């Protein structure tokens, strides 16, 4: 059985915070915890297909959202995933007020710093629970 923790970002397309969420999740699953974590396309989860519902059902998930609408967290829950931790990018960027994080399509160095911070927090949780 697939026991990997699923890390699901919102990948919001309108602001840099969506890109920060996306890059944080991808850094975690590709670089920091490839053996213990994976991602699933949020758009696939939204589709509600039987195959992805089975994949998500009762699986442990960490979500990363770029805005207060919490799309990743809500959609994972709707699909039957268990959200063990939900990250809000805005909580982390609060500590970096006045910095230029980049744009929805690219990150400046300060944006990369936030990605590093969030992905390290996600990795810590994954290593604790898996």
């Amino acid at each position, binding site marked *: 059985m697939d026991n990997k923790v699923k890390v699901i970002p919102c990948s919001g397309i309108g602001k840099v915070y969506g890109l920060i969420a*996306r890059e944080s*999740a991808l850094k975690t699953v590709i670089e920091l915890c490839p053996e213990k974590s994976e991602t699933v396309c949020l758009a696939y989860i939204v589709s*509600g297909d039987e195959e992805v519902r089975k994949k998500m059902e009762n699986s442990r998930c960490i979500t990363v959202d770029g*805005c207060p609408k919490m799309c990743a967290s809500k959609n994972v829950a709707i699909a039957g995933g268990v959200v063990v931790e939900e990250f809000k990018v805005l909580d982390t960027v609060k500590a970096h007020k006045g910095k230029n994080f980049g744009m929805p399509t690219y990150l400046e160095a300060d944006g990369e710093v936030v990605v590093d911070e969030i992905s390290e927090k996600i990795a810590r949780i994954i290593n604790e629970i898996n």
Partner: protein
Amino acid sequence: MNELKVGVLSCSGEECLGGTISRLATRKVLEELKFVKTVTLCLPLYLAGGEEERNFAKVFPTISVDGCDKLCAKRSTEKYSGKISGSIDVSKIIGTENALNSRIIRNKDLKPEHYEMVDKVAGEIVKEISHLSPDSYSGKSFGGCGCGGE
């Protein structure tokens, strides 16, 4: 006076390069296209948002941009919102092997060849928009969301 607008909606899939290309190409069209105003929506807002978000494809003639042949953006839009006016399957433009590449997904790993793919897909989106009848463009406004934007 209301401006006429077209919706462009990307899957932004996280599992493969096709999703990254779909997201970047959609943003490129939103930022650079001049002959018609474009708007977008974060796809997961169909379920996480409200009625306004679910009305997106009813308000705007909408082009879906999908990274692979699962066509999640197209199918979800037709399931939750309304009929699609045009669709792009990125895997048909850049090839299935490229689209399903699960090693190169992060922006920082993209090479010039990947940005050429973005340009090519953006060109196809523009072609798809140009096939729409100008009569179908929406003059309505849309509040958008916290993360998606116009």
